[in-house]
């Protein structure tokens, strides 16, 4: 058996949900664990752990990443958005509101990742077609809703934001 490796530490500074956070993390720490265990941001979830299901999706500089397979040190100096930063109960993000209104939430374990994936899509493509949404959601699994209401929520939100703009 090889010897037990000694962890090396790295100092990183993240801009998480608009707040600057400086912390020292093991170099091998995954972003998901740093968010959940060090910053108490539990919204991102671990499920498949293989970049297939999308439950751990967060946005780094606006781009969706699998926090379960992304080194925390890679986010050093970058902006990280988790579901906690998307909106608050008193001021929901339009996507959060659309998910609530359309019944796109059941067990909720996929919801954070779904919302952030959807945000990344709409930021890139404000008026996606249904086909665009289905293509984009390839990396986000939901075992409860059957997807219909999630797709509807995203499409409604897209239309809504277009009207608002």
């Amino acid at each position, binding site marked *: *058996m090889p010897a037990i490796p000694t962890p090396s530490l790295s100092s990183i500074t993240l801009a998480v949900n608009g707040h600057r956070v400086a912390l020292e993390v093991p170099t091998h720490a995954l972003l998901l664990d740093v968010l959940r265990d060090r910053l108490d941001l539990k919204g991102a979830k671990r499920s498949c752990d293989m970049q297939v299901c999308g439950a751990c999706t967060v946005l780094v500089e606006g781009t969706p990443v699998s926090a379960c397979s992304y080194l925390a040190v890679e986010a050093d100096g970058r902006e990280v958005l988790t*579901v906690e930063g998307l909106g608050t109960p008193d001021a929901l993000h339009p996507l959060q509101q659309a998910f609530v209104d359309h*019944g796109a939430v059941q067990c909720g374990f996929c919801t954070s990742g779904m919302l952030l994936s959807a945000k990344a899509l709409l930021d890139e493509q404000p008026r996606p077609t249904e086909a665009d949404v289905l293509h984009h959601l390839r990396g986000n699994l939901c075992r409860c809703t059957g997807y219909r209401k999630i797709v509807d929520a995203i499409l409604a939100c897209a239309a809504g934001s277009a009207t608002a703009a």
Partner: protein
Amino acid sequence: MRGGIGDGGVTRTRPFRVVGHSVRRLDAIDKVTGRARYVTDLAQPGMLYAALLRSPHAHARIRSIDVAAARAVPGVHAVVTSADLTWCDPYFGPAFRDRPILSIGVARYEGEPVAAVVAEDEGAGAEALDRIVVDYEPLPAVTTLEEALAPGATLVHTDEPLAGHFADLSTLKPIRGTNVCHQFHLTRGRGVAAFADADLTLEDRYYFPRVQHYSMEPHAAMAAWDEEDGLTVWASTQNPYSVRVELAKMFRVPLSRIRIIVPLLGGGFGGKTYAKLEPITSALARLVRRPVRLAISAQDAFRTVRRCDARVRVRLGLRRDGRLLAAECIADFDVGAYADIGPRIIQKGTYTATGPYRIPNVVLHSQAVYTNTTPGGAFRGFGVPQLAWAVESLLDDAARRLDRDPVDLRRQNLLAHGEEFEPGDTPVDGKFEESLNRAAEAIHWTQATAPDRGRGVAMMMKASIGPTVSEAMVRLHADGSATVLASTVEMGQGARTVLAQIAAEVLAISIERVSVATPDTSITPYDQTTSSSRSTTLMGRAVQEAAEDIREQLLRIAAKAIDAPPAELGLDDGHVVARGTRLAYPALLAERFGMSGGELIGRGIVAPGRSRAPLGGSTPFWEMAVGAVEVHVDEETGAVVVDEYVSVADVGRRINPQQCEGQDEGAVMQGLGHTLLEQMVYDGGQLLNANLVDYRVPRAEDLPGRIRCLFVENGDGAGPFGAKGAGEGSLIPVSPAIGNALARLTGVRFRELPLTPERVWRALRARSKP
């Protein structure tokens, strides 16, 4: 929306205010803002992390386990094998207590926990797992039904199993010297003799695959013991009270000392019924005297529980005029290495094998068979999907042979509202014909399809659980707000919202004034289980009764206060009203207690008890659903495309229409999974695809071109306000509806799921050869 409300002498018809409306889920805001908490989001001070070492062998004797090097890893608090668990009763299981906390002398499936590590962090735990050396002596393994049932087959269990704790399974029938752990048999009418009178007899065999629940949240548990030997477990379980009984037996602790708390579940689908990780987590916490959390990976969830695969032989006998005369179903269910709830699955699944049809002569025989694979347990549908795949497929073949329209043939044989399905059991409590007609109409059944399209239809009928018990309390607080105390687990289905709606309706307060407590066996009263689509009906009625109990108390207080007969009083918007007087609840409570601060407690108990129905208790309600589908096939590749799917469920009344739709849309998609995509693949005893790269669950792209979930609502359900259970039923017709559509389109009858492109391609190619 109108309905009859109230009893106690006050029966009026008025619109529902809360029930029947798609009110927002109680947990919706928490879930979209990341505030919702699941077991793995919880921690305790001083908590340690557990990890499990699993057997790589499907079947092996364990000669020795060397844990010395593992114990030496810094940060490791304990390395545990079954040798360290002699202080407790190490076996558990709801039907048979056949499952050890950790392998005792023999491992019976690949992935069985053999040893456990408790460490400061996951890193130390992983290092320690690497250093445990197990000396295995591989044994021959049986990994299919065929192997397990062959004469002289290797036995998965050689000892007589210990009985579990369910009364309805008191007649467990293991057959010594075989892998059969339970059999179920039922004969109605003249049995097989009736086939002699049939004008048409058909027989066929069908196979249903091993599939995985893949709840997004893998199983997790956290346990802590206090100084008085009290145990608290935070668990991702669908039935805290069953877990409590298991733990009480294993650790010899009174029920009152065990507290099971259930935060939100990230999906359940049956996979979180009965004890899973709670025994090992509790044992480890006891050994290290610290709180311990065990969260398994999604890959290991595949090694924790799955749906029972099955092979089913069906024979149907019909009269020339289309009347069903006789049916025989012989089903073997593979329950894997440990029985879990398998024996009840084979009973329940087989009991309604013949579906919603009037068949005077029936023979049912099923058996639960051990194999060296992941234990098979409850999964949405509970044995019925396996049988419905067979019977509904053969029924379509019968229609073809009789040159009858399949919808028409079904309609002719449907059980009517109020008709007896089985002597002693609950009569049919819904309208199958209305559901079938709705489905046929929605899919344009009588209109011609495009030449490359095929349509199919299938039905199902499922019993819920009985005898059964649900108890609830409702507390009306001094300010007129209320708390519902119920142990129904929120796993995504929206039960907590429905219970709040029921309480709010009865108490005539807004739903914002109702809280629903987190299930906690030290606080929320007994409930048998959150499964079997039973919560709206049974817990819903318990909550309704508890709220009505409070209403009666309020009316009595008010009657006394204004000196009016209770019969003339009613509730309206947080007030008792009578003779032009409106008394707000807070004022009435202050009146009752002589000060501000006391509260009213309402109690509701629903316990239908035993009956002479074959399964020991009558079903509280029948779950009823129809599926209708239009498909096409890419003949060159065998890929099946679902163009349109219509699901119709008779739910009596929808308490929350949007949630009902959500349940059924999810059920249909999950059904499409095992119909078209999903299968756990074993090679020998080795599970080859225990991960999402190689095991394919439906994605958004797999949505049918159009999906509609419709409901029949006649207010005739056994639950509150005429509602009854939903959520499992709509999954069940998916496979046979698609199989029937394919048969009508291609002329090929498919008997084995999933209908992967290769399987369909192969069958189509065999057809086109002369």
